[in-house]
């Protein structure tokens, strides 16, 4: 009898564990009446973000304090999450109906979420305050559903001291892949633990390198992938051939959290492909450094990312939430804080305000940030299966970088898997 009971308990335990992963409850689509009577009643709104994580928490707090000073009846309760976990938490919150009143989203997630009706329309907002191209990415059928808080580009960071020591010229905006490759080889010194280059083997780097090589990710009608082409192969090889030659391999730590940041901070990285959001973290370096527009192959193409804030459709304080969303994305305080601290660029239309950004020092060549906007590689968006697509590209290229498959095989595999998703 005892065994029966024991295994009975086992089965129940099995059940509960097996189902725990998918036991979320409500549909999260209930629509609450907009609280138009917020008026001067004291309200507390919640804000869930990833944009301040990893060094900008105090800068965000400065903006929140200024907002609360301007609207004394509104209190903002801020929750900050790491980017890596943010969207899992957001999705779960949306499903459970426990979303914050105001929450961060990004360019690539907007098209996947908007049709589900989770964003409240932001009718009362003056959209002329924003850069038109960036704001348009968060509007559907003429209705603004989110407000861009910042945009950023990916540029080439370089360690001037290492370039000087190797007797090399600094990178310029005219550099091509060949120039970068030659410099990377000259900079790499395995015995000293110095690597010439670091560019993540990922979807984000790949779609950009693809445009730099003159290729395209999807066919014109978006019904199939188009990267299994000579240009696509050139882009894949450009990335994977760095691994183990001028860049550390996955076994040596590449791809793990903060690996590249530490390598850079230790002065052991010649060139680094990363976003301008790393200015703050790179600033503490005890060596001279600067940035340049990322080298291209047949053309220059830089990745541009933007973040935005949305108001939850289920928020009970939509008016107060919209005020905060607007303050966070367009107020002078926000612009000042971001420019002073080098925390990404505000997505505002008044470019004159941004001129102070250029004189902030370290890096000196901040003009490269604006120059990089001359050639933009937009990420391919396929809707519901976006995350799968990104995983497939990342996985296949990682296999190729490790030398377990060829770049050709990686592209062929990715092509058939992603076409299945699109089909």
């Amino acid at each position, binding site marked *: 009898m*005892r*065994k029966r009971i*024991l*295994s009975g308990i*086992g*089965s*129940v*335990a*099995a*059940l*509960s*564990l*097996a*189902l*725990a*992963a*998918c*036991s*979320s*409850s409500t*549909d*999260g*689509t209930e629509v609450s009446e907009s609280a138009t009577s917020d008026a001067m009643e004291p309200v507390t709104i919640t804000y869930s973000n990833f944009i301040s994580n990893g060094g900008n928490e105090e800068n965000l707090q400065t903006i929140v304090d200024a907002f609360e000073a301007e609207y004394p009846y509104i209190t903002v309760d801020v929750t900050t999450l790491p980017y890596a976990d943010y969207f*899992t938490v957001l*999705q*779960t919150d*949306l*499903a459970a109906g426990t979303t914050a009143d105001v929450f961060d989203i990004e360019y690539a997630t907007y098209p*996947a*979420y908007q*049709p*589900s*009706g*989770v964003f409240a329309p932001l009718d009362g907002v003056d959209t002329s305050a924003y850069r038109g191209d960036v704001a348009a990415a968060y509007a559907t059928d003429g209705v603004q559903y989110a407000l861009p808080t910042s945009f950023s580009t990916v540029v080439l960071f370089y360690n001037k001291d290492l370039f000087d020591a190797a007797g090399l010229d600094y990178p310029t905006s005219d550099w091509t892949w060949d120039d970068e490759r030659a410099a990377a080889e000259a900079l790499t010194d395995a015995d000293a633990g110095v690597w010439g280059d670091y560019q993540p083997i990922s979807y984000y780097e790949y779609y950009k390198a693809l445009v730099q090589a003159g290729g395209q990710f999807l066919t014109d009608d978006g019904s199939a992938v188009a990267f299994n082409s000579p240009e696509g192969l050139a882009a894949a090889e450009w990335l994977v051939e760095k691994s183990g030659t001028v860049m550390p391999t*996955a*076994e*040596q*730590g590449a791809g793990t959290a903060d690996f590249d940041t530490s390598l850079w901070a230790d002065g052991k990285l010649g060139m680094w492909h990363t976003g301008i959001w790393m200015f703050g973290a790179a600033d503490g370096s005890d060596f001279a450094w600067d940035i340049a527009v990322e080298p291209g192959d047949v053309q220059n193409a830089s990745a541009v990312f933007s973040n935005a804030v949305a108001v939850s459709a289920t928020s009970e304080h939509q008016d107060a939430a919209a005020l905060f969303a607007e303050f966070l994305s367009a107020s002078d305080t926000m612009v000042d804080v971001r420019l002073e601290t080098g925390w990404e660029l505000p997505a505002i239309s008044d470019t004159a305000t941004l001129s102070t950004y250029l004189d902030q020092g370290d890096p000196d060549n901040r003009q490269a940030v604006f120059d990089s906007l001359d050639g933009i590689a937009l990420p391919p968006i396929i809707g*519901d*299966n976006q*995350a*799968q697509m990104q*995983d497939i590209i990342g*996985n*296949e290229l*990682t*296999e190729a970088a*490790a030398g*377990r498959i060829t770049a050709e095989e990686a592209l062929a595999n990715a092509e058939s898997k992603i076409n299945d998703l699109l089909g």
Partner: protein
Amino acid sequence: MTATAARTRLLPTATARGRQRRATATAYLFLAPSAIPLLLFVVYPMFRAAWTSLHEWNLLSEKSWVGLDNYADLVSDPETAAAFLHTLYYVLGVLPLTLVGGLALALGLHRAFRGRNLLRGVYFLPVVTSWIAVAIVWRWLLNPSVGIVNEALSWIGIDGPGWWTDPAWSMPSIILASAWKDLGYVMVLLLAGLQALPTDVQEAAMIDGAGWWRRLRSITLPLLTPALFFVVVITLINGFQVFDQVYAMTGGGPNGSSEVVVMRIYDMTFRYGEAGLASALSMVLFLVILLITLGQMRGERKWVNYV
């Protein structure tokens, strides 16, 4: 008191029934504190998941009814098949390691010697440690370039593998860490089994001149089969639901090489927005575990001895 006693004597059957009814009510009363959370957090979500498995749902939009389509999709999905194979790989790797290792520990720590209780505690320590902490430590130990394991291997001239960066080694890495963590649990279960064994049979065998090995094989192990059976059942049930260590050590990678079933359920639900498909997969997993457990119950008669 006297009144009850008198009535009992007068109406024996009726009161016996009444007493039984009262006993039943008392039993329910005692069960309620565990039954209510169980119904709320296990049984209800189970039925919700079963219901969800018949829908397409990205967690955000309204659910839309698709009948058994999700199940049909799973059958033809190579990655689901791969997830089951990875899970089977895990179970077949971890079961012998914990069973043999746990038995050896239990036999060793069953004898009386100084420091025995301390050692029992030491071996049980990993069991009560958080999986996340354990996984992070093991990731360090098995770090391909700076880990202690590969460092130690290099001393004896072995070029250590890529562990969690190599698809061929990601599953062995997880199995190794899991066996280390679960060993103490199996040890405690078997130790309890050993302590419950009758000593007279052992003494008789000893008098007859049976050696240690002979006694282990012919007496201890056969008598220990109920405990061994329980260990196998529990290890298999837990093994098919392996998740924490995979999530923390490899995240299912590299390139999906350690994507086990529950990891896939998690990815489908929270990363890929396919909660319906994931619910269907959890139903299938439940069915698989149920069938395996029932199969074991059936096989039980053949090898388990109850004294």
